[in-house]
């Protein structure tokens, strides 16, 4: 049985209060780094841990931090990506609602490491409870000197502000998030310059996901070797898996990185609903290409999934059983991306629009010969050519559905109806 690290407090009755967080050893990591480590040493710990970003892309966190210029006369910023918009994902919400101090401590430690005095937590606006709990926790932390001027008597000043999103998936994309923080329409920015060099208000900025940051205090307390010892060395650590869809026990599971998808779905989440069979699983939120049942042996980590043509993404595991029409799932996914496209670049804005039109028709039994080729062509025109990764995610997802479940698409066109109805 894997002992939870990130989720250890979430089931405590008052887990969101400072008192229970402190009782469980909270804020020791902050004390430790302020007392014993230089910022560079903290960055080094994170580097050695091989921690990779939990927001989706799996970028090595320590490396990202080390891109922040040491010498600069501009302030540095830490931004926490708590926009959690990837369908199938709810891990950050649970941390923020039930263990907000874990995130606040993580922010303070990380802010100290990169030399930031201000952190903005970009929380999606729907997460009202999470926002309230975080605000309350920030107030408590301030009162106890974990935040504010001279944190815990040191000369480190640190403030955390919440920035509420207002309903736009694209805000999860880090540069769009910066635009949004600056009070603009959330459209991704050109890179370079990368945020670590010129991000928020053109200042050096580190952006990390909630879960990524939450790992940091534990790395500080237990050491990078402990972290690297969990799961594959190149992609290690405890990991939160969000399981949902047509499965007996949907929920949030903390397990080692790299655990086989089948074990997660069948053992931990209880397998398919009675009388049904698993047909396919989306392993990392709807941006991740679907994996048909025979492929469930795959290990749930960045590299294994990438090698199999899918991705770990946000680890939003969506289980689809044999009663479900894949054309419908694919259509819904592309509708989502189409709805959430920020509209900046041509292939994403226009391409997804055409994909939705064709898919809806095919799903409704009004498809025509040539439609699937048209969809293949669209995937080609979109993938790799969009401004940010939103379009890529959409094209990859559609391409996988077309590839693995082409017979279902063909059946819709040939039978002029949905075979599942």
């Amino acid at each position, binding site marked *: 049985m894997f002992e939870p690290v990130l989720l250890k407090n979430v089931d405590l009755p008052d887990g969101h209060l400072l008192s229970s967080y402190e009782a469980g050893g909270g804020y020791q990591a902050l004390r430790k780094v302020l007392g014993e480590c230089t910022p560079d040493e903290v960055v080094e710990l994170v580097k050695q841990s091989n921690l990779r970003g939990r927001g989706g892309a799996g970028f090595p966190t320590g490396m990202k931090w080390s891109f922040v210029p040491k010498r600069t006369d501009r*302030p540095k910023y830490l931004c926490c990506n708590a926009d*959690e*918009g*990837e*369908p*199938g*994902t*709810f891990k*950050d*919400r649970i941390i923020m609602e039930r263990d907000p101090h874990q995130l606040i401590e993580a922010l303070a430690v990380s802010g100290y490491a990169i030399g930031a005095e201000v952190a903005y937590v970009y929380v*999606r*606006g*729907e*997460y*009202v*409870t999470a926002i309230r709990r975080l605000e309350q926790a920030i107030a408590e932390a301030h009162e106890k000197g974990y935040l504010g001027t001279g944190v815990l008597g040191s000369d480190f000043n640190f403030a955390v*502000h919440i*920035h*509420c*999103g*207002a*309903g*736009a*998936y694209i805000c999860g994309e880090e540069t769009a998030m910066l635009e*949004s*923080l*600056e*009070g*603009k*329409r*959330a459209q991704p920015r050109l890179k370079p310059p990368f945020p670590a060099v010129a991000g928020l*208000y053109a200042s050096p900025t580190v952006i990390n996901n909630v879960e990524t940051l939450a790992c940091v205090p534990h790395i500080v307390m237990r050491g990078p070797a402990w972290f690297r010892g969990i799961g594959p060395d190149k992609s290690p650590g405890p990991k939160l898996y*969000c*399981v*949902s*869809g*047509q499965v007996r026990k*949907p*929920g*949030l599971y903390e397990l080692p990185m790299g655990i086989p998808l089948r074990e997660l779905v069948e053992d931990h989440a209880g397998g398919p609903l009675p009388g049904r069979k698993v047909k396919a699983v*989306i392993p990392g939120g*709807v941006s991740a290409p679907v994996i048909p049942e025979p492929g469930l042996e795959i290990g749930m980590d960045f590299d294994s999934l990438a090698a199999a043509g899918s991705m770990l993404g946000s680890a*939003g595991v*969506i*289980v*689809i059983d044999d009663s*479900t029409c894949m054309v*419908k*799932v694919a259509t*819904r*996914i592309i509708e*989502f991306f189409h*709805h*959430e496209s920020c509209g900046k670049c041509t292939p994403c804005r226009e391409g997804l629009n055409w994909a939705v039109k064709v898919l809806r028709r095919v799903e409704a039994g009004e498809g025509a010969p040539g439609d699937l080729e048209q969809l293949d062509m669209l995937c080609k025109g979109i993938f790799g050519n969009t401004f940010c990764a939103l379009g890529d995610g959409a094209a990859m997802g559609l391409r996988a559905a077309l590839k693995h479940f082409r017979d279902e698409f063909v059946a819709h066109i040939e039978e002029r109806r949905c075979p599942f109805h």
Partner: protein
Amino acid sequence: MTMREEIEAAAARYPDRRSALMPALLIAQREHGHLPGPVLEEVADILGVERIWVYELATFYTLFHTEPIGMFHLQLCDNVSCMLCGSEDLLTHLEARLGIKKGETTPDGLFTLSTVECLGACEMAPVMQVGDDYHGNLDVVRLDALLDSLRAAAGRFARVEHASAPQPGE
């Protein structure tokens, strides 16, 4: 705090006043229910930013409403996880019970029905957000109970409003 004070407090959190636009719009929307032109102008005025910037934001983000909405905004998630767990049937049911299509508001102004993208609560799919609250693991029975309780709450609210309103002849 007045709306202006609240917005000023939000602005103090950022080095640049334009950054406070999103919090300001949320504050203004809480105050006014939705964001018509004059409210957008007022926000622009308080923050000293261009009016068009405010308008851009109010239309870009789905949580901002430039048109009035009902007292209860029923936001049913219809993304993949919820869809797999039956949200489509719930929508059909809601449309039938309320007599409106999604995107519409009931004539009494009580309910606005929308479908929304993933609410980030798929562990309790299907999910619907009403106001600040999430309601999960919904089925038709629970949904009906929820609608009834909202109606009852609206009735209480209306009575309170009514009681505090000056009576004719007073």
